[in-house]
């Protein structure tokens, strides 16, 4: 199965299960959880079923394209269903069947994982799903988002697309994944990895970044106070990515880390509370 067919199949599968198929949010983020489709929509009582592919950036994980398993840019396939269907685990296993992984022919394990995102003030309980020893999905029942206790509870499924594609295609490097029968993942992303790794680790202007980080934070706070939590949240995404970049450049000492993380979390909390107010469901 080609990389693009893997995505098409998942899109089709979750469409059949009643999810709207949305598109990625157009800003840098470290994980699909940061997308509006998950962050805001896990809040409040209104049902929400969505699936989307989300490009993610983790500057620190770049390896100049030299490591077959590590990259600063990759894809997650995200499913978020609220309230969590009673048979969500079965649905997930069916989705594996849909992409050609016959459950009975493999060693599948749901290994406990207490998920937590300190920057979003979010946490949940669930599993890492292992396929023949390989972690392919993070499966989480959200309990808190931006410090708010959730009800109803959303189930979040996050598929690691490159890993799954490598597994299905039997290749040892993500860059050898066949996107279709002519183009490889490496042709699309190898140069991207090299240049961004150089930027992330060597050339990023840390002074400029620290400067804008503080300005973005102030702007985010201002917007949140103006009861514009959705635009304010753009600045959560911006400063979160800047923080990750600064971290990759080792420009933030271990001692300072918690201070920055708290800033992002606090702003995310203001956004979430503002959003709850605007949609008419006050935070519990």
């Amino acid at each position, binding site marked *: 199965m080609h990389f693009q067919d893997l995505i098409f199949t998942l899109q089709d599968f979750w469409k059949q299960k009643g999810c709207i198929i949305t598109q990625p949010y157009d800003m840098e983020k470290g994980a699909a959880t940061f997308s509006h489709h998950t962050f805001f929509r896990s809040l409040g009582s209104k049902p929400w079923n969505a699936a989307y592919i989300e490009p993610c950036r983790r500057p620190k994980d770049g390896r100049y394209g030299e490591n077959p398993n590590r990259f600063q840019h990759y894809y997650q396939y995200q499913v978020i269903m609220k309230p969590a269907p009673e048979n969500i685990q079965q649905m997930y296993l069916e989705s594996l069947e849909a992409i050609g992984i016959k459950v009975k022919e493999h060693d599948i394990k749901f290994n406990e994982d207490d998920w937590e995102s300190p920057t979003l003030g979010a946490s949940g309980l669930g599993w890492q799903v292992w396929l023949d020893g390989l972690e392919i999905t993070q499966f989480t*029942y959200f309990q808190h988002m931006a410090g708010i206790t959730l009800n109803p509870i959303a189930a979040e499924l996050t598929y690691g697309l490159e890993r799954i594609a490598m597994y299905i295609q039997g290749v040892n490097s993500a860059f050898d994944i066949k996107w279709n029968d002519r183009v490889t993942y490496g042709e699309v992303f190898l140069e991207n990895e090299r240049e961004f790794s150089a930027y992330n680790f060597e050339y990023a202007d840390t002074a400029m970044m620290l400067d804008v980080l503080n300005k973005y934070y102030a702007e985010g706070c201002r917007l949140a106070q103006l009861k514009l939590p959705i635009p304010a949240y753009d600045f959560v995404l911006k400063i979160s990515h800047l923080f990750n970049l600064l971290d990759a450049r080792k420009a933030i000492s271990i001692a300072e880390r918690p201070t920055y993380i708290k800033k992002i979390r606090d702003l995310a909390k203001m956004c979430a509370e503002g959003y709850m107010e605007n949609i008419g469901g006050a935070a519990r």
Partner: protein
Amino acid sequence: MSRLLLELGFEELPAAYLAPAAAQLKDDVKKMLEEKRLAHSEISSTYTVRRFVLTVDGLAEKQADISQEKKGPRYDVAYRDTKLTDIGKKFLDSNRVQEKDMAIKEEKGQKYLYVNIFEKGKETGEVIAAAMPDIIKGLRFPRVMTWDETLVTFARPLRWIVCLLDGKTVGFNYGRTASGNETRLHKFIHNNQKAAVSGADSYFELMSKNGIQLNQEERKKEIMAQTEALLLPSGLKILPDNGLLEMLAASVETVSVMAGAFDEKYLFLPDRVIITAMREHQRYFAVLKNDGSFTNCFVNVRDGGEENMDFVVKQHARVLFSRLNDAEFFYREDLKQPLESFIPKLKEAVFISGLGTMFEKMERMKLLAEASAGLFGYNDPALLSHIARLSKADLNTNMVGEKEYAGLRGFMGGVYLEKQGGDKKTCAAVSEHYYPNMVGDTLPSTTEGLLVSMIDKMDNLCGFFSAGDRFKPTGSKDPYAVRRQAMNIIYIILEKKLDIDLEKFIVVNLDAYKKQFGKCAEKSEITEFLKQREINYFKDKGVDYDIINAVTAPAGLNLLDDWAKAQVLMDARKKDTTDFNDRIFALSRIANIIPQDFKPGAVDVKLFEDAEEKALYEKFSAEQSKLSELIKGKKNGEAFSVISGFKPAVDAYFGKVLVNAREEAKKNNRLSMLSQLKQAFGAFADFSRIVVDRK
């Protein structure tokens, strides 16, 4: 007689949650049945990763009826002007008794309302249905969650409940989940298919027919049996690992063991690196040859049948390959530079917030090592300082810096030093200086390792106390495991009989903090904390509490001495309890008769009247200096036999002498004499704290 079957079905629970909760379920159901007056015989519970199963045998068909008299409020409270007050009405209403049916009885001159209540026993099913939701809710897990709008909690979503009393459904709800007679078969093999059961027998038969093993011990046996069948013919065996076995058995409902191999070229990596990659990350057993040598094989357990096994094993090997590939990269990178070149990077790692970096910690450890001649009587402080300097360097290596291999700290430092030509003593000490992790663990094998370990732990202890209240343990909370640091120090000292001046050690360590940060904890805080841990340590080792109190009563920290004395007293008590009691009773009479505020003066032998009095004092005068020599020389067995040898003389004394004589001078003289004895014996232990049961 009825039989109850309860099955709670849930999405995969963490392996470590299962056994305690299954045991609690059994206890709580038993408690409930007793409270509800439901007779029963055997109760048993078992579990898999997705179910708790409980059966109760010989269960009564209904509750016993009760009929009893119940006492109410006082008459003058229940009535005013012969009319019922609100209080009186409430009592009658709540017991559903009419005014005409109650009685008034007198008791110690007061009149009270009495009613007869009769409660008809309810049907067993009804009682259980009412009690079960609370029992489920009460199961304790390290973390719980909610999953539906009813907000009921459990460690993972509870998806089905089977509750049958002789085949009849006992109906109740937990959240949106209603009990019934339908269980689920295996999640993968049978697509989680529903299946109705008609009672406990039919349930167990169904499970067994479908290969679901409900018993943890059976699963463990099965894993071991299949492993042996796979490995034995090739002369191989697994590296025994009970923790992993327990975890794997608690992660599956069916057992299929597989064995695979990784590329032999990785065998150049230290065994512990490979074991970590296999155990911590992949949950694989390591495999040894029968002669104990390490191999490139691994063993894993699969849940859900054996289809496609060759492919599955190859996939596991591939995952392991990429893990070992990473490890090889870290290892080779780390060896490109001497271990000591990682030391400056310690400046980037926070030790305890507010107390600087790991680099500063390393400097304190060096300082203590340099003082080791004076502190511990160690003869090569320069070597110890060298070891202390290198001890934390591996924290910044690629391998240990990586989260998954963080547990190899110390060990990797030792490996790298050895590869780079470090001397044996240094390598071993760096490698083992985190040992012991807890009381009972293996200790460092060299003197240098022991001393650096102790210095490291003392520095942690002093650090947490110096950093502020939020790091100190309170009640059941000890997030920084400060108590464990202290317990480990005590464990090292007592196991290795290290005769060191702990108080001096603490002072030097605290001074080092003071120099670096201008602040440090009070010495007394640390010594009192250690004393309390000493008491706990003795308790854990089975020393009787009263003997602990007696030997730890003298001021200061004298771990070795206290321990030896405790052993002497425990042995004496065990050997002949009556004799021990008699002797201690005699000794405690001395302490008990002296008033707390008594100020002893000089003893005047001329004021003695009785022969017994003179005899006791003569014996004491003759043996006093010998006793104090014995105590100073830590000859505790002999010291105790000298002290307890006073028993006949003391008995004779109290048999004859009236201590509290009418004449003040005589009385004071006697008390002064006894005070001398008390003080001399008290240097060994406070005998008055020992509980004597004399029948």
